[in-house]
Every structure is written in structure tokens, then in C-alpha cells.
């Protein structure tokens, strides 16, 4: 369902608030089926929601006592029934018809609707439940993976032997537990850092497509740990639903709809300054490759205001300006270059590969746009994946981001043939996400937020931290490692965390 979005002044909004329901004249033509509007004051975040009950053409003679946006150019009158303040809704919550990232005046777009499905509760398999009951009765606490295995033995073994096995497993698990106060963080950091010296620095081309490469090895690992806003090679793995995954034709169609194609990708733009005109010349080879025809281009041109265009022949379109100006001509040329014809924003390229092990088509993309792709029909949203961790955090939440960090780090290391225990990677991803937002490893992230002044000063930007500590009257509790080393006393981990007192022998 379409909604209207616009930017307005605070004064106008308060006027509407006072007078609603009221008529409001705007200089923008909107479809008649719109019943909802959002207003922003800062171009990006929408703070007001309005309901609209009537849309009509502006008539200078009859419509007089209206609230006006811009008097002279008014074209439409809308009746605003009610207005209410809402929690900020970012522009990314809308799919705008003209792909703007900011609202200067008006726009029409679709609101993304999210269907929340209550997550079905995780059910422990019945056979496992018996084992869990057994364990509870004996006061044991085993991880689920062990319980699952034990279920098999419960079925096969006679009770006395099963009992014996339980006892032994409990003993083994106790023997293997980490020692309390173990410095697991340092061990994890060393276990990830040490193999770093053995990693390669190359990027890797996949699927035989040159533009489609993925950063791997050390640079990728650094990128993950840095929690970069945008990875150097964002890429998605798109899985398809049942109807699509084995249908080669549908897959082709899907790729065509995925790839973000701008005019410059399929055509040459020729500027004729003398004539004050632009000519779009479709490149036969490129347009065939991208499955674009001239009418697609014309559709795209429809959305550009202030131009007159004319189809010359099968591959050329002549464009003239409504008001001639060199500046505008130049701007138009630049604008045309990036005018999208179709596709999902940010998805530069997509290819399909048939996976023989799971017998389905899988799409790989260059560029990532999880939110939009998940909304496309035919995409299986439960399996589709991107390597952009921050995007996952924004779209799917922090728990998903935690798993993404783990998965990306694990893939990067195992691709290099390096064996690192999963517990270390889990600790890293948990540490980066447990605060509720993804934090980088480094001075802007985890290290910059340590509670100890001395530890922060020892890491980076020494003087800033010391001066600031003085102003705030900060107290260093000397609870971490770095600060205790600085003042020269034992650290509070490992054997330093416990005291051992020898009482002596009684005589």
C-alpha cells in the first residue's frame, strides 16, 4: 500500500495538529488511493503519521481557506483527518518510488510491513527428555549434544550399564571443564591472532567471474574483527523457495530483477551542447546481457521531471530539457548515468549456480541488500545470507549478528586450512555483541570502553584518557590485567585470582 511522505516545517505541523481535520494544499501530484502519510522535519526520520481521507485536484476558485504548503504551485488538496506523533521511523523503512535517500519535498512510497511470527518454542525431542529426567534425578547437567547421544545408548543398553555409562560421562565432563579463573579471553585472542601470521593476503575470485571476488584470509579476518560498516566485498548467498529453486527460467528472471541496472550499464549517453540535447544510445550487447529493452529505459525516464524525451529508433532516445540551461543539462547527464532502470539497489551483479549436493539453484551476488532481497518473491528468507555483519544486525537483530560473526570468522579460518576451536570464535563474537550492539575490537569499540583509565591509557591515545579521567574524577578499580601490571601487582586471573594459605601442621 502506498503512502505519501513529505518534509514540512515545525510550524506547519503544529498548525495541522491544531486544526485537524483540515484540508491541506500541496504542490505534488499523488495517486488517489493514498490514505496514510508521514511527515519528517529532518529529511530522514519520520516523526508524524497522518491519516488522509480525501484527495482532490486543487481548484483556485473554490479552495481558499486551506492550509498551504506552497501557494502558487498547488496542484492537490488532501484532507488530513488526524495527525499523531510516532517513534522515529527512518527512511529505510519505506520503499520509495524514486529511490531517494532523503526527502526534500514529497515522495510516494511503499511502507515495508513486517509480519511478526511468534517463534515456535524449541522442543526438546521426546527421547531426549527421558534422558534429561534421568540426569536431573542424579544431579547431572550435560550439554544437549551429549544428551542426544545418550538417548541412543539408553535404548540399547541394559539399565545397569546405562547407569555406569552416565556416571562415567559425568566424570569425563567434570574432568574436561575449564578451570575457574582461566584467562579464556587471552587464550581466545592468541588462538585467533597466532594463525594470522600464516594466512595469505589475497582476494579470491569465485564462480569464474572477475568482478565477483570475495575478500578472504587476513584482510577479511581483520574486517570482521573491526566490525566495519561496509565490508570491502559485500556479497549475498540467496537461496530460493520450492517453486523457484529448480526452475532455470524463473531463476534467470529473478536474476534480471535482482541486478541493479542503471542507464549507463546498458547505454551510452551522448551530450550535444549545441543542440542542448542528450541522446541515450542503447548498447545492443550490454542490453541483451542484462535483458533490458528500450521500453524499460523509457519507463525509467518517466520518473525524471523537467524533460521531454523522444524515441528516435530502436536504440536511441533523444532528450531535451523543458527549460534550457547548461547547468541543468550537465546535471541531467550525471543524473541519467545513475538512473536505475530496474533491480535491487546495491546489488551490482548476481549469478546462479546449480548446487549438486542439494539439487537447487543458488544465487550469489556482488553487493548486499538483505532487507530488499528478503522481500522478493521466490527468495527463501530463512536461508538467505549476507556477509555484511552490520546489515544483519540492522535487519535481523543482534543475536543474528552474533551468529554471523561466528560464521564468517569460522569460514575465513577454515578456508585457509587453519584449525581453531569454535569456543574461541564464540567468545569473540559474544564479546563483540553482548552489549546489544556490535562493537569493534579496538579503540573505538571494546578497548575504548574499558572501565580502567590505566588500561585505556596504555592501549592508545594515552594523554586524552588521563586528562579526561582527571576531570571526571574517575576511579580506577584495578580489576583488570593491564592496570595491575602497570602498578606492579599480581593480576586477578588464573592463579592470581585465588589465595592459598598454609595453616601448618597441628602438633
Amino acid at each position: 500500500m502506498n503512502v505519501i511522505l513529505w518534509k514540512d516545517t515545525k510550524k506547519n505541523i503544529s498548525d495541522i495538529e491544531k486544526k485537524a481535520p483540515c484540508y491541506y494544499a500541496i504542490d505534488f501530484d499523488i495517486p488517489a488511493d493514498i490514505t496514510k502519510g508521514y511527515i519528517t522535519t529532518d529529511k530522514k526520520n519520520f516523526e508524524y503519521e497522518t491519516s488522509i481521507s480525501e484527495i482532490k485536484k486543487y481548484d483556485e476558485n473554490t479552495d481558499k481557506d486551506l492550509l498551504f504548503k506552497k501557494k502558487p504551485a498547488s496542484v492537490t488538496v488532501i484532507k488530513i483527518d488526524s495527525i499523531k506523533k510516532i517513534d522515529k521511523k527512518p527512511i529505510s523503512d519505506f520503499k520509495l518510488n524514486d529511490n531517494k535517500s532523503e526527502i526534500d519535498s514529497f515522495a510516494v512510497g511503499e511502507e515495508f510491513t513486517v509480519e511478526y511470527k511468534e517463534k515456535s518454542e524449541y522442543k526438546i525431542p521426546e527421547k531426549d527428555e527421558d534422558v534429561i529426567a534421568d540426569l536431573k534425578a542424579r544431579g547431572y547437567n550435560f550439554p544437549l549434544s551429549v544428551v542426544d547421544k545418550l538417548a541412543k545408548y539408553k535404548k540399547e543398553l541394559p539399565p545397569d550399564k546405562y547407569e555406569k555409562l552416565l556416571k562415567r560421562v559425568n566424570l569425563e565432563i567434570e574432568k574436561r571443564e575449564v578451570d575457574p579463573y582461566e584467562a579464556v579471553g587471552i587464550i581466545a585472542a592468541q588462538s585467533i591472532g597466532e594463525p594470522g601470521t600464516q594466512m595469505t593476503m589475497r582476494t579470491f575470485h569465485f564462480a569464474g567471474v572477475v568482478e565477483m571476488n570475495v575478500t578472504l584470509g587476513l584482510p577479511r579476518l581483520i574486517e570482521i574483527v573491526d566490525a566495519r560498516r561496509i565490508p570491502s566485498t559485500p556479497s549475498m548467498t540467496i537461496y530460493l523457495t520450492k517453486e523457484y529453486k529448480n526452475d532455470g527460467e524463473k531463476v534467470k528472471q529473478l536474476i534480471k530483477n535482482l541486478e541493479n541496472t542503471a542507464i549507463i550499464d546498458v547505454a551510452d549517453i551522448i551530450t550535444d551542447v549545441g543542440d542542448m540535447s542528450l541522446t541515450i544510445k542503447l548498447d545492443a550487447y550490454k542490453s541483451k546481457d542484462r535483458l533490458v529493452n528500450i521500453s524499460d529505459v523509457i519507463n525509467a525516464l518517466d520518473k525524471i521531471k523537467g524533460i521531454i524525451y523522444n524515441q528516435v529508433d530502436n536504440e536511441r532516445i533523444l532528450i531535451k530539457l523543458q527549460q534550457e540551461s547548461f547547468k541543468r543539462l550537465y546535471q541531467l547527464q550525471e543524473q541519467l548515468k545513475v538512473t536505475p532502470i530496474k533491480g535491487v539497489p546495491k546489488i551490482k551483479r548476481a549469478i546462479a549456480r546449480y548446487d549438486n549436493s542439494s539439487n537447487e539453484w543458488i544465487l550469489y551476488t556482488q553487493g548486499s541488500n538483505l532487507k530488499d532481497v528478503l522481500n522478493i518473491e521466490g527468495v527463501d528468507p530463512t536461508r538467505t545470507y549476507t556477509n555484511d555483519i552490520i546489515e544483519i544486525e540492522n535487519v535481523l537483530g543482534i543475536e543474528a549478528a552474533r551468529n554471523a560473526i561466528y560464521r564468517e570468522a569460522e569460514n575465513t579460518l577454515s578456508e585457509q586450512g587453519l584449525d581453531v576451536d569454535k569456543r574461541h570464535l564464540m567468545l569473540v563474537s559474544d564479546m563483540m555483541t553482548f552489549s546489544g550492539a556490535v562493537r569493534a575490537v579496538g579503540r573505538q569499540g571494546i578497548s575504548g570502553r574499558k572501565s580502567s583509565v590505566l588500561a585505556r591509557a596504555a592501549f592508545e591515545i594515552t594523554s586524552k584518557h588521563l586528562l579526561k579521567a582527571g576531570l571526571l574524577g574517575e576511579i580506577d578499580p584495578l580489576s583488570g590485567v593491564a592496570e595491575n601490571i602497570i602498578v606492579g601487582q599480581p593480576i586477578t586471573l588464573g592463579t592470581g585470582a585465588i589465595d592459598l594459605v598454609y595453616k601448618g601442621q597441628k602438633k
Partner: protein
Amino acid sequence: MSFNNVSKRIEKIKFALLSPEEIRKMSQVRVITPDTYDDDGYPIEKGLMDLHMGVIEPGLKCATCGGRVDECPGHFGHIELAMPVVHIGFVKEIKNMLDSACKSCGRIKLTDEEIETYKKQLSAINYETEDPEIIDLTLKKILDVAAQRVKCPHCGADSPKVILDKPTTFREGGIKITPKEIRERLEKIPDDDLIFYGLNKDAARPEWMVLTVLPVPPIDVRPSITLETGERSEDDLTHKLVDIIRISQRLRESRDNGSPQLIIEDLWDLLQYHITTYFDNQTAGIPPARHRSGRALKTLVQRLKGKEGRFRANLSGKRVNFSSRTVISPEPFLSINEVGIPEIAARELTVPVIINSFNIDKMKEWIKRGTSPRTPDGKYIAGVNYLIRPDGRRIKITDQNAEINSERADIGWTVERQMTEGDIVLFNRQPSLHRMSMMAHTVRVLPGMTFRFNLAVCTPYNADFDGDEMNLHVIQSEEARAEARIIMKVQEQILSPRFGGPIIGAIHDHITALFLLTHNNPLFSEEEFIHITSYLNIDKMPDPVIKDGKKYYHGRDIFSLILPEGINMKFKSHLCAGSKDKCEYENDPEDTYVVITNGKLIHGTIDDEAVGPFSGVIVDRIFRKFGPDAAAKFVDNVTRLAVGFLSFNGFSTGIKDYDIPADAIARIEEISNETIEKIDKLVEAFRAGQLQPMPGRSIEDTLEVEILGETGSVRDESGKIASSYLGLNDPSVIMARSGARAKMLNIAEVAGMVGQQSVRGGRLNRGYANRTLPHFKENDLGAYARGFIKSSYRAGLSPTEYFFHSIGGREGLVDIAVRTSRSGYMQRRLINAFEDLKVDPERRVEDTVGSIVQFKYGEDGIDPTRSDEGKTIDIDYIAYDELGDEQ
């Protein structure tokens, strides 16, 4: 050394600003003379080297505490500045306050309601746990509201906009505000408003950010040094303080005798400059203060900052005594737990021993030995270097005074005795990337000048013997020795916490030796058997095979001698890793799997997979089943057995390993010519425009991919041809197949063909205009012109091939150089971010604040070192082990 008995801990450290009163209170002297020493070299009173601030010369006594050098900790002095000066570190805060506080009444320019709401908002913040960035942002928003307002809501006065002219000049409506005025304005700010500026009213007052009094650091902080010429050279800080006092005095004089305002202002600015550079000599916008020689001075901030700064170079890491460093070399007859140290080091490094009623006789005897005792047959025994009396006095033992001091020594004295066999020491090789880079060894004093250790320990240290040096530290306290023995000893570190497998194991020749010993189970005569096992300590002989009345022994039986009893396993060797049912390199199909039953090697070949580092399944199993002692003994025996075998049987490699018959060479020549032709045809097709582009690529790329495919397959092909003539009786192949060193690929390069060289994943294409070298025609896309090497290393490379090979090699070198620095920084950041995490007794992971990072470490609370290849537990094996086959 009283802290051995009392354990004290600093609980916390509070940071705050110093008030002028406090600076005066802690000062021992007001410094007024901008000079240091008089002509006799005696410190000038009230000068910068006044004796009240501490002593650095032996013989003099501190005028404050009466202590001598090393006793007096140093004391502060102070300088009364003629005029106030802005503190460079707080310019931003001062700007905020000038912007947001009312000029006349000092209150923040917010209405009472606003103050109320913002205060509520701020008091909700927990300063200890909240993200500092968010706190900064909230404060900035509030301050912005106040700064935008011109009229003060409290007194109604107007405050014009204040502009900061970096670094330290403030202007209001174009007119400079003097630091004095700034100070007056800041004084007006009430304590209650400080929270909005991010100040803690218990720790700081705004006016303290404008200095009126400057603390002078103790002399110990800025010692002067005497050069060989007898000339004195002052510390950079002293130089800077001289400047400050000098200008401050001139300013005071000018002010008092009514000099023109212009001169006073110039001097005031100069004083500001000197004090700014005294704090931070790299302030943006002003030239750094320089030494006479033109070198920029190292002032306070520079002393603290960066890798060579106080924090990282002296506080987080410290230089230590009782350590030594020398070149390392191998010694297979040492246990992995031992380290051989040269006598000269053992004589210098000491262990403190406190004399008590139990050891007094022994210690007296040791002292009597003097500093370089030997047994009658000339062997090293430990002597004593120092005696420490209970009052802390050190007595150096010489061969002359040993006798007397032996008499004098009593209970409570400390003896610093030399190293002796069995002492525990820490051994380290940099870069210390993981905890196995620093392990505890027991000492063996050996002749020679190098540190020596067992070759199996090369892997954790990442050491080789091409000139590497390592460090050794002697542990000085009983607790540390106990911890080193129990936790840090090499045998305790056999399993790596990174992947839960062994990181210590046989390498290179040792693997080759065991391979030769067990592959196809050869027979050895009794004489050979005795030689092979002569370094081992065995108590029973294996069953011999009698042949022609002579005793023979099977290789596998010999290997079984070092396996502990009761070990059972079945696994695939490195040699047979790729094969399925039948291994092509074994004569007996049963040897596809290595089978060990009750400590006897029945089938299969022992190689890298069985005893090597990173894989080493036998080492792994022994460690888990029988513990570290057994595992260490096994690794020791592996080295001894391998050396025993090799010293009798010998093993050598050479260029003849790569000899292949002439027709094989001809065949390789043939296929390489075919490839070159194919490439030429592809190029021709490309030039004629007949090449069909691959989907999604340009024609040029298509050509490159096709050619790369061709060159790749011809290299593989030639490798196959070459290796078909090289079998397992060829030493190089034995090394490659057993996992001892090199890969089959390397052998193919030597015997067959080196193949295409690449830079950044593609063929070579840069150099001269449109060609790689002037030997080729422009735009030559052929094989030779783009880095294809048709020769083998054995045959030798043509000059152009050699050049291209060097290009490829250089890329590798650059890659390594870039990589080490990048991964080093990544690891530093990782360690810094994770160093505080620990597991609590419930196996939760928490940080220093007490936030829980994981509710169960690794989701199962299991130590990766003790896990079964990462799994919590291998139930099937446990069931087998507990219940046997009866299940």
C-alpha cells in the same frame, strides 16, 4: 624485602585535577631561579636542581627527607607564574564553558525547567558502565542548547559568541580574552552546573584549568647526565622549565614596572607557548620547541605516549634481571622438558635461597665453594655469587672471602647460588604469539655457548637454528617456581588450546626415520637392532625372527618398544591419507590403516600423522590416556629412536633424486610445446576476434582464464609424468609422502616443470610499455612473454624465466612483510580487548565490571585443550572404553 611476608594490594586509584593550593602544599620549594648548578657544580638553592626536590648525585643528601640516592623518592617543587596561562589539555572544556556559561553570572544558559529535565537525564546515566561516546553525545547536546542562547535566563545579560583561535587564544567579538579573564569567568561557574560540562565537582574546578601555579617534577624524573667530557647535559623537561621561569620572571618585571601593554602581551603569549610545549610539544598549530641541535624536545605528553612511551615501554612491559639470551642449537638427547645452558650463563644466573635450620649446613658448604667450583674431574657444579644479609646488604662472594662468609652466614640470610641441574627456568622466543612461546624447562648445564633443546619443541616456539636467539629467565620466588612446574612445563603444554591437538611432535628427519623404520615392516639384524635402540632405555627385547639361524627384528616391533602398554588405536597414516580401501603406497593392503593393539604396532606406517606436530594422533592419545609424563617420555623416545636409526642407516638427499629418464624429459618437453602451441592458437583466435567470451567477462579476461587453465594443467601433467618415475625408494619422495618436508608439488617443480608464474593471481603483464621485457615484441601475449617457465629447477631456468621467477618470488616476500605487521596489530587489539575475561566457578565468562559475556563458556563449559577434537566429549569412545565390546 619485607613484602614477602605481608601481602598488600592497591585497591583503587582516583584521578583528579590539582588545585593551586594543593600544588603549593605538596611542593617542597618554590623555584625562582632559572638555573641549575653553580660553577662548582653544586645545585643552586631555589633553582631547578634544588636539593629539596631530591638527589641524583651520590654523596649528597636530600634536603627534604634526608635520604641518599636510591633512598629518596624525589619531591615536587613549584613555580608561581606571573600571569595565569591556559592548560593545553583542557582547551576544549574551557571553550565549552565559555560558550555555555553566562559571562556575568556564571550560570549555565539554560532555564530552570531545562536544568531540571537535563539533570534528571544525566543522573540516570551510570558513568561506570555507560558507553563514554553516548555520555559525550548527551552532554554535547545539552551544551549546544545553552551555547545557542545569547541571553542568560538567570540574569538577563548577553553573552557574545566566543571563538577559539587554535590552539590557545580565545576571542570574543574579535577581542582577545586574556587567560586572567577566562579564569575569572570560570571561577563564577557554580559547582552545581559542573555536571553539564562533564566535570566531577569532587575532582575538579573549572578555574584549575587555567594555571597560576606550575608543579615542578622531582629531579629523579628529569635527571641530568654527565657526559664523558665532564660536561653536564640537562633533561628536556629541565630545559623547558628554565624557559618558563625565565619568561615568567621577565613578565613579572615588565608588569610591575609598567611596561607597555604590547610588551606584556607578547611576553604573556611567550609564556603560554612555553607552558603549552612543556605539556605537549606536538600541539597542532604551533611549532615544536627545539633543542639547540634542532631536535624537537620530548616533553610530558611525548614521554607517556606511544610504543616507546612510559606506558607501553616501562609500565606494561619491564626489563628484568636474572635473564640471558644467546643463539639456540638442537640437541636430540635432551628431554623436551630440558634446556641446555652454557656454563658461562649458569655461573652468572642465580637463584635466591633463604638459609633456614634445614639447609644451613648445606648452604655453608655451598658458600665455601666460591664462585667457580668444579668436581675433581672438572665437571660444573654450582657456586655462590652473592650473600644478602637480613638488612638487605649484598656481599659479593669471591674465592678469597668465601671461607669467611661461609662462617658468617646464618639463618635468615639469603644465598644467591648459581644454576644447577634441575632448576626450573622460563624459556622464550619472540614473537611471543601464544602461551607456548614461553614455557618452563629444567636446566642442564652443558659445554658450549648456546642454548640447546629437543627438536620436538621447535614447533611451539616456531624456532629454527639458522641463527635464532632465545631468552631464558631464572625464576626468583618459590610460588613462581611451583606454578612454572605445574602449569608452564613443556609437557603440560603438549596440547595446544587453539585446536586441542598436540603442538609438540617429531619433525623433519625424525619423521623420515620412523617412516623408514616402519614402512613395509623391514627386518633388521641383531647388530642393527642394537645400534638403532642404543639410545633408548629399554628393559625387554622384542621377539626376534629367526632366519638362517640369525636373529632379526621387525621395524614395527622396534617402534612398539616406545609405545606405552595398553594403547589401542586405528587411524590412517599421512602416506595413505587420500586412499580409500587399499593404499597404493603400501605392499600389504592391511597397512592402509595404522593399527596399534595393546601398545604393539601391528599394521601401517608411522609418519607425520602419527607423531608430527599439529596432527600427532599417537602423542594425543598417550597424553589423554596416560598423562603428560608418559607423553613427554614418548616424544623423548621418538627423537632418540629416530636419531638412533638415522645414525646407523643414514638418509641423504641430492640432485640425483630428481633424475628421470630421457624419454620422460622428452615427454614433458613435448606436452609443454603442445601447450605453447595451444596458447598461440588462443592468442590468434583472440586477435582474429573469434574467441567466444565466457558469460559475464570481457574477451581479454576470457583469454587469460583459458591460458591460465592450459598452463595449470600442463604443470600438473608434467608433475604426474615426473612422479611416475620417482617412487618410494627416492629420498625426496619419502620426505614428501611421509609429511617430513616438502610437498609432491615441489618435487614436480624440480624434476618436471616450474610452470606459470603469477602476480596477483594473473599472468605477468607489467614492466615495459606493452611488454614484460624488451626481449619480446610489444603486445606479445604468448606463453614465454608472460611468465611461463617451461624448464625445471633441475634443468635450470633461462635468463628471462629466472627473471620472471624472481618477480613471483618477490611478491611472496612483500606479502609476508605486509602480513606480519598487519596481523601483529590485529593480535595486539584482540589481546587488549579480551585480556580481562575470565571464567568464574560456575563456568560463566565475565569481564572486570562483572558483566556476563557467556553463561557457559563455549556453550558447554569445556576447555578446548581437553575437548575431543572440539566436541564436548566422544561418547562412543567413552562407552567403548567403559563397557568394552560387550555393549
